[in-house]
């Protein structure tokens, strides 16, 4: 098996592991972690696919995609964690009493 294929295959397995944990686990923190594991799997696949020729330089586009993907993934994780924190602290922003009319 060529090395890039090994990387791509482990990326796909990481993705599958994360995705199944995301579906099967009930606990929210586990789900968020699972989504991150799964995202790492996708990024690994992209980086592995960046290899074009045996000796040539790698394709830069997938690296750019991975960077963007990481930004999206971090933002989504941050949002999820913020929501979990709000829920656990029972913080009320309370717009319902701020309604007019």
């Amino acid at each position, binding site marked *: 098996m060529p090395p890039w294929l090994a990387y*791509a295959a482990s990326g*796909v397995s990481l*993705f599958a592991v*994360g*995705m199944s944990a*995301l*579906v099967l686990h009930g606990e*929210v923190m586990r*789900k*968020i972690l699972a*989504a991150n594991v*799964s*995202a790492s*799997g*996708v990024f690994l*696949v*992209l980086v592995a*696919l960046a290899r074009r020729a045996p000796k040539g330089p790698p*394709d830069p*586009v*997938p690296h750019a*995609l991975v960077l*963007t*993907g990481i930004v*999206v993934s971090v*933002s*989504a994780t941050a*949002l*999820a964690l913020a*929501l*979990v924190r*709000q*829920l656990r602290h*029972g913080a*009320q*922003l*309370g*717009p*319902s009493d*701020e*309604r*007019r*009319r």
Partner: protein
Amino acid sequence: MRGVPWLELTILAPLCGALLGLVLQRAVAVLALVSSLSTAVASAGVAVLVARHGTIRRSVGAWELPLGIQLRADGLAALVLVAFAVVGVFITAYAMVHFEPGSRAARSFFPLWLFAWTGLDALLLSSDVFNLYVTLELTTLTSVGLVATGGDPAALSSALRYLLFAMAGSLLYLLGVALLYGAHGVLDLDLLGAVVTRGPVTWGALALITCGLALKAPLFPLHGWLPAAYASAPVPVSALLSGVVGKCSLYVLVRIWLGVFGVPLGRAPAVLIGVLGAAGVLWASIVACRQQRLKLLVAYSSIAQLGTIFLVFPLMGRAAFAGGAYLVISHACAAAAMFIAAGTIEQVVGHDEIDRLDGLAHRLPLTFVAFALAGVSAMGMPPSGGFVAKWLLVRTAFELHEWWWAAVILIGGLLSAAYVFRVLRGAFVPAPITETIRRSRASDLLALGLALLALALGLAPDLPLALAAQGAPS
């Protein structure tokens, strides 16, 4: 006219409004209105350009394909852009009535809504599979934030649930994009469409991308997150999610099918999507009939309407395509009108339980007229945008000799008549007027305006349909 960068402006106008709104919090509502109106003007500019010159392409930052990113507006994009901008202006105006000026809810709603709009316009104008991913994420993350502006535990937990579903969906989609790029080395929809062939990679990418978008759209049976999210969000958020933002995953799916998968993979996967869409229509309509709360009823009705739009996949062809586009824009008006009416009812009587609305129509006549008129479009009765859309779909079904799709659309229409009349029946029962109620005439007028737009789409369909036909599949 040609010199003005209308495409870029449709993205920049809401973006500037959102950024300024974060800084100038006192003036956030006015800023939002100005930026909504500017976005609407820019969207109209795009539509005029497309109607005159056909599909427009712009290479962002002058980076050419295949490395650069293109903005592209064809007839479908222009039509949806304009329709969403009009509904968007109504929703901004309604939010100005709904939220206390300067309140915390208003300060978080307006910038988030404008960010969502930025993502939405960028998504409508995207022409490559990765840019569609990024813009879809922008729109989804801001929508999750919008649901959470409700602030109570129900809103927060439904926002979290929505986010987890969306994360799973976007990862599936991204892996599909990785497969496509690995096999073909391009991301642009047109370039991909030219090189994609039938094969295991294409099937894998198709399955991943379709599942991911079906989770986000949502397509039956993956809709678990939607009713709670729509029903627990503040009313302007429910209106904009159900009317506008909730269509974007479906739009991406249509784009990718038209551009990439439609031709090489044949009809089987499209029929599968159609079957799930049809199941969604029937199931969600029946569940809508059994709801106790008005906002949940409208939420399930939205799932049913989305299911109907999914029928364009098995019926794919010029007429069905136009019908799907038409259903998107008429439902955008009707759903927003229904949610605003439901919100007015809830604010006035303090609840939205359908069985306790007796006699309310005499006290809130405009509200119920708006709800009923929007209901006419949801049922697909003439004269309404919903009728034109469903007629185009039904006609295509008969042309293909596949009457069962037509049956699903007609049964869905009958069931929506059942749940709309169930709301109206109680409300129009004569009841003594016990107290005078404070109500907002402005929100009634906005709901009525949206409902009348849905009707107007049925009376004057030529112009929008001609626009949708620009660059449509033959």
